[in-house]
């Protein structure tokens, strides 16, 4: 069964550093998303991407965040200058009719 994959599974970085989280969505899906889950809190929507552009973003998704689909398969989330409060599990999802989630990348900012 096709699945969404994410790399790395765990990323540790220092405050102020740039990180790129990578996702490979399911190949025939049209919409792509990033969500995050801070430890002990609910899952929050960050951004959706369709037809090679952002279709919707949340208040969390400020100028420090960007997304890109650099080729036909990868979908990336970049955080330019990480803060301690960016520590969270980041989930990628893709959809044709319903959203399928990847296993997540745990980002730890020290």
């Amino acid at each position, binding site marked *: 069964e096709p699945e969404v994959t994410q790399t790395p599974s765990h990323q540790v970085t220092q405050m102020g550093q740039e990180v790129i989280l990578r996702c490979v969505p399911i190949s025939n899906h*049209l*919409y792509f*998303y990033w*969500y995050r889950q801070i430890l002990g809190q*609910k*899952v*929050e*929507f960050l951004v*959706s991407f*369709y037809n090679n552009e952002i*279709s*919707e973003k*949340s208040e969390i998704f400020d100028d420090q965040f960007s997304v890109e689909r650099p080729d036909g398969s990868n979908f990336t989330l970049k955080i330019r200058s990480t803060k301690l409060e960016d520590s969270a599990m980041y*989930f990628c*999802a893709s*959809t044709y*009719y*319903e*959203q*399928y*989630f*990847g*296993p*997540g990348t745990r980002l730890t900012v020290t």
Partner: protein
Amino acid sequence: AQSVTQLDSHVSVSEGTPVLLRCNYSSSYSPSLFWYVQHPNKGLQLLLKYTSAATLVKGINGFEAEFKKSETSFHLTKPSAHMSDAAEYFCVVSNSQGGKLIFGQGTELSVKP
């Protein structure tokens, strides 16, 4: 604006007894509703979805949910709990295909032997 409220942060049942996880939603549109499950250190797995067809929705692993518009509820049930059902369950709403998902706070289900 859309939202979901999961009425219990933690539910504990004995193995073999029924499970009820409660969810109320708020939506200006005819919503799509979902239940996702998250096992420890795992990703989010879709259990079932409601998209304006049958109001009683059957999902994987014996779970089902009933959409009640008059009560704005979408409670998740299972007749007999299994130890492997212990996990975090999220009620989720969306207003359109391709639209963002809005998650509830989650309900942690514990299953006692």
